[in-house]
């Protein structure tokens, strides 16, 4: 993150606090694709991700006067996006969908080793996790939340958070190995 980028965000902050629509749009344009990336990890698909992005930014502009400058504005916005995703998850808790592992092989893979896995594939793997696993995995591994924070956010126990994380990890490992195995097999063949 370079200095100019930070300065731009900070200069837009005052305008956004005044409710200046131009400043809001500029801030959105700067951060939208980055935040969309966050939302994509938490959502099943890009439609759900855009819904979360929209709700999240409306919240950002409504609450921006509460931003006290502790930490970066981007970090604060990112947390709002994650919280919005969590709210969406809790709202949809009843329609929890079970992952069909076979779905992974629907798309042809062009990468061969783990480091060669494309971002798109990793995203697919994460999105294919069941909602609960995906949330815990994202929050713990990518966002760096503690199990205690996750438990509080999702309204579950710390033990449940830990077991969901370990289950998510094993599912991901399994899928990656299968992908590698497929590649390995295709290399030999």
């Amino acid at each position, binding site marked *: 993150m370079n200095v100019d980028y930070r300065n731009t965000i900070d200069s837009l902050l005052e305008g956004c606090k005044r409710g200046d629509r131009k400043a809001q*749009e500029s801030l959105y344009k700067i951060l939208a694709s980055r935040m*969309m990336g966050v939302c994509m990890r938490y959502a099943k698909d890009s439609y759900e991700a855009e819904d979360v*992005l*929209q709700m999240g930014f409306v919240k950002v*502009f409504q609450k921006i006067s509460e931003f006290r400058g502790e930490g970066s504005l981007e970090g604060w916005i990112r947390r709002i996006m994650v919280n919005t995703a969590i709210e969406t998850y809790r709202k949809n808790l009843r329609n929890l969908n079970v992952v069909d592992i076979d779905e992974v092989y629907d798309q042809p893979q062009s990468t061969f080793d*783990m480091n060669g896995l494309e971002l798109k594939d990793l995203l697919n793997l*994460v999105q294919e996790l069941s909602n609960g696993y995906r949330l815990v995995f994202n929050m713990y591994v990518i966002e760096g939340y503690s199990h205690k924070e996750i438990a509080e956010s999702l309204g579950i126990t710390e033990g449940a958070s830990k077991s969901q994380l370990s289950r998510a*990890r094993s599912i991901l490992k399994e899928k990656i190995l299968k992908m590698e195995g497929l590649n390995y097999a295709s290399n030999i063949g």
Partner: protein
Amino acid sequence: MHPISDKELDKLFRQRFDEFEVEPSDAVWGKISDQLNDQKIGRKSYSSFWMAAAGIILVLSAALWLFRPVEVIKLQGVAQIKEESNLAAPVHEPAKETITTAPANDLDSKLSAAVGDTKVSEKNTEMSNAQIKVQEDVQPLVGKEVIIAAVNKDKAPLIQEPVSKPVISHADSFDKVGEGDVYARSLAKSEITEEIQTETAVSTGQRKIKSIGGLVNFVIAKVDHREDKIIEFKDGDEGTELAGLNLGLVKFRSRK
């Protein structure tokens, strides 16, 4: 095929997702902007309601304040007539029964003199020319001075009192000049009493129309049939004042 450690897995996802960006569709900003606009409009319409309410109150109070001075003159004018009648009555009574008794009112020397004159003339059962003259002199003054007194009655009791005194003597003698004896005077007295009553009735009737507050009460009563009207005025000693306010939840009622 080596087993993947948790550390390796976490590192892989963290690194890849660190700079992960996806361009959302263009429609998203439009939706955000619309949503923010809706909330703004909602807030605006809410506040404009209160602005309208405040505006009505402001205009009402400004109108009342502006019309107040005019109101005071009219009210005092009516009050003056009333006072005159009230003062006239006691003067007649003592005059009829005990000629030498001074009126109960606290009158100054000038009034006593005037009343005294009247009594003297009554005793003789005929009016002296001088007395009539005095009364005639007083008569044209009455009209003017009543108005002056009406304008500044409370603040200038000194002006007012001399005025009312001639009025009394005038009214008193006016009837007596023609009659000339006690019987006729007693008749005149009853006539005057009637006159006073009708005068009072007229003055109260006029007050309703004359005062803006009365007008408002009249109009409001046409629309608002509740016991406590949305706004109600009363004519107090210092002009029209707010007697009651009923805005549903907020009610105000001054002591009657």
